[in-house]
């Protein structure tokens, strides 16, 4: 079965009673999990690029505050008007771009790509299912996602511009900025939350109900486990944010005071509100989502990396069960660490001790997972191809991101580092060279299954090495800047700090070296943008021009998604799947080849 390519045509007799759906049904209003996965994938990649574009504009303003943005400046002025007059980014625009960069990257790019795109395409295939449990709900989930994205995009063009209060939208700031952008933000979030809720229900039901015969829990590929835990996080952590969004919407629209305290002054005047609300309440509800969200961002990438590592080391994953239990532990613990984002709110020592403890504990399963993946490399005959390069790049990058989080989890060190560039460097190491590298590994790895062709290896390697170098050039200096005390969200990149300094390198001021790093970082960011061009061209060019696969299982993999025709037809499998053994039987002794697919009994 592995040596031949069975094209879609082979199953036509099997599905003869199905009429071919038209263009709209097949590509736009499709209920097929693979089409929906690709829809999610392409849409979220576009948002990823757009979110990055916003940041590239902001990096100009940080490096050269007050100077007109070359090339893009006049365009921004034309499209957005006064906020970019003369091609210079105003502070309002900077705030909008900052808030929307975070929102887009988290809710419209990385989560949909990691969870919805890969999950939709791969999970049903890996468990041997014909589709998701609720195909029509799946379609609605994607449509809600698109509506949410459109609402967010439209908010750039309304009077006052998009939301400006950061992706965290802290009240009362978010409520008192005079723009309807925040209202759009809330409405957009409600659609996105609905979308992820429908997706999460669907994923969990599919994994529990539609596993093929013989696919027991401990035979699930680790990627499926990762998506399973992720789905539970989305299911249970998002609703509190929805509740918070409803209350903030009431504050904006019905002039309630959920998050507005008595005696609130806006612009020096007593605000006309009934008061009695609690700004901390918003922070609690937001971070109750916010922290599980971190693991929503990272778990699917860990799952992808595990698949790629097992496949390219040609040996079983080291500690499969530890991986599974560690991700379950992460899932549980991620609900009781949220207040470590709030040490600066003046919480009592007992509460802060509790959250420091849980935060330190949650680092244990994270380290377990990373360690298992590292030890899996030991003694393997490693194939270095593009997916493996990205997976190997992921491991140290995620390691740096995770370990630099520990000082933020302890309140003594956090009080110094809070809201500085150190925090930015930390979570970008987790999500940008971390998660996004994992997702890139997944794109290069599953591309041959989805299209029947490989992406170019050469340009893939160019993409990897340039991205790796520039990612580090961007984020490493930020650790230094942050420790020197440079704050986030400053429209002039910290120049006011350098004006305030007392003598060179004096405590309280920022040295010229620290401020000067802004220029280098910005250039690295733009070069990182340039390094994505080979990927974008490669991605589209290979659909028609890539090297054709000669087998349905080009990577000699064991999991079920490679046992389908290429690309998989509606209904996925040519024959019903039956599973005989675990997911990573590579190089098992006594076999005729170095891998044993899950649907073939072992000798």
């Amino acid at each position: 079965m592995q040596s031949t390519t069975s094209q879609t045509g082979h199953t036509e007799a099997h599905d003869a009673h199905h009429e071919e759906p038209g263009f709209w049904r097949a590509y736009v209003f499709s209920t097929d999990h693979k089409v929906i996965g690709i829809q999610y994938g392409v849409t979220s990649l576009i948002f990823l690029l757009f979110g990055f574009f916003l940041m590239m504009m902001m990096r100009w303003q940080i490096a050269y505050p007050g100077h007109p943005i070359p090339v893009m400046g006049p365009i921004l002025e034309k499209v957005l008007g006064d906020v970019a007059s003369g091609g210079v980014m105003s502070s309002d625009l900077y705030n909008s771009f900052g808030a929307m960069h975070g929102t887009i990257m988290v809710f419209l790019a990385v989560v949909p790509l990691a969870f919805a795109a890969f999950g939709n395409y791969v999970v049903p295939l890996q468990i041997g299912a014909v589709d998701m449990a609720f195909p029509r709900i799946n379609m609605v989930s994607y449509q809600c996602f698109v509506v949410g994205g459109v609402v967010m995009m439209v908010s750039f063009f309304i009077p006052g511009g998009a939301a400006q209060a950061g992706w965290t939208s802290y009240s009362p700031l978010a409520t008192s900025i005079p723009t309807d952008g925040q209202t759009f933000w809330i409405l957009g979030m409600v659609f996105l939350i609905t979308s992820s809720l429908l997706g999460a229900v669907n994923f969990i039901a599919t994994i529990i109900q539609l596993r093929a015969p013989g696919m027991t829990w401990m035979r699930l590929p680790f990627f499926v486990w990762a998506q399973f835990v992720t789905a539970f996080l989305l299911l249970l952590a998002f609703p509190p944010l929805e509740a918070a969004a409803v209350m903030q919407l009431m504050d904006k629209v019905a002039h309630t005071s959920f998050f507005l305290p008595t005696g609130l002054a806006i612009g020096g005047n007593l605000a006309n509100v009934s008061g009695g609300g609690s700004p901390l309440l918003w922070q609690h509800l937001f971070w109750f989502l916010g922290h599980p969200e971190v693991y929503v961002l990272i778990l699917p990438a860990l799952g992808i990396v595990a698949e790629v590592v097992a496949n390219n080391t040609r040996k079983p994953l080291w500690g499969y069960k530890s991986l599974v239990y560690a991700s379950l532990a992460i899932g549980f613990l991620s609900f009781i660490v949220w207040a470590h984002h709030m040490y600066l709110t003046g919480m009592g020592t007992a509460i802060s001790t509790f959250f420091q403890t849980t935060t330190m504990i949650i680092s244990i399963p994270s380290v377990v997972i990373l360690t298992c993946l590292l030890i899996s490399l030991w003694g393997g005959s490693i194939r270095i191809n593009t997916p493996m390069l990205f997976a190997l790049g992921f491991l140290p990058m995620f390691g740096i991101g995770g370990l630099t989080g520990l000082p933020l989890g302890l309140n003594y060190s956090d009080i110094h580092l809070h809201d500085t560039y150190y925090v930015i460097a930390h979570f970008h190491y987790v999500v940008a060279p971390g998660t996004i590298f994992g997702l890139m590994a997944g794109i290069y790895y599953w591309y041959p299954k989805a299209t029947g062709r490989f992406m170019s290896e050469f340009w893939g390697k160019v993409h990897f090495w340039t991205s790796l170098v520039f990612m580090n050039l961007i984020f490493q200096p930020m650790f230094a800047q942050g420790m020197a005390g440079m704050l986030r969200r400053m429209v002039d990149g910290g120049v006011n700090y350098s004006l305030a300094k007392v003598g060179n390198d004096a405590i309280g001021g920022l040295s010229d070296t620290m401020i000067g790093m802004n220029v280098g970082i910005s250039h690295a960011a733009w070069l990182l943008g340039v390094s994505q061009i080979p990927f974008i061209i490669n991605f589209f060019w290979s659909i028609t021009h890539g090297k054709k696969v000669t087998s349905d299982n080009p990577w000699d993999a064991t999991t079920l998604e490679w046992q389908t025709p290429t690309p998989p037809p509606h209904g996925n499998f040519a024959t019903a799947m039956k599973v005989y053994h675990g997911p990573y039987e590579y190089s098992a002794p006594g076999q005729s080849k170095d891998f044993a697919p899950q649907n073939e009994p072992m000798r």
Partner: protein
Amino acid sequence: MEIPYVVQPRPDTGLYNAKLGIWLFLASEVMLFGALFSSYILLRIGAAPGAWPHGLLNIPIGTVNTLVLITSSITVVMAWASLKLNQFNRFKMFQGITLVCAMLFVCIKSYEYYDKFTHYEVIMTDGMVADGHLVEKSDTHITLKHVAVFHEGEGTAGDHHGEHREEMRIEAAQIRKMENYGPWHNTYLAIYFTLTALHALHVIGGAAVIAYLWGPGSRMWKTDPERFTNRIEISGLFWHFVDLVWIFLFPVLYLL
């Protein structure tokens, strides 16, 4: 292509797909309402001493509405049981009662909302507060009925302090500030309106589904009775959840 376990339960889980789906959905609903109830607790604990209002709502009306919803909870089970017993007409009757109860609940709730939106607190230039229902409003004066009059800062409407008047006419010039008991009036009303409106949306949504399955959707009984019965079970599970939320809402908002 056929998705398995759409109607029959999967042997090792004992569930058909949609039943698992609705339980998962309800889990997320618990988190949604849980977050709002937690917010209620936090806001109430954080309120200045004596600032949290009591007695703004009509307990008998709330009790009646609670009974209406509990009745519908019973009939929704009876409807499902009737289908299991193969008695389609009994199903129609019981589910019809459920729908009537749902409509009654929404009507009573609307009346309560109306009552709050016409209930005004008028602060007068002489430092007195008149608290009552608006009867008439013109450019020169307003008229309130069932009015409590008390000094500003001396308790609230629910406390039954102060002097009571059947009707009161206030000249426009006397009015310093006038505001009705909408969500903007205080934090208690804010959470009251948010919680009950969200709950009412759930009632309306659930009733819409039940109405569809009672009307045009019931044709499925003839073609696929087992699947139809499952649908009734699922809508019933959702309906029970909606009732359960009210069982928590009633004491929290009306009694405590």
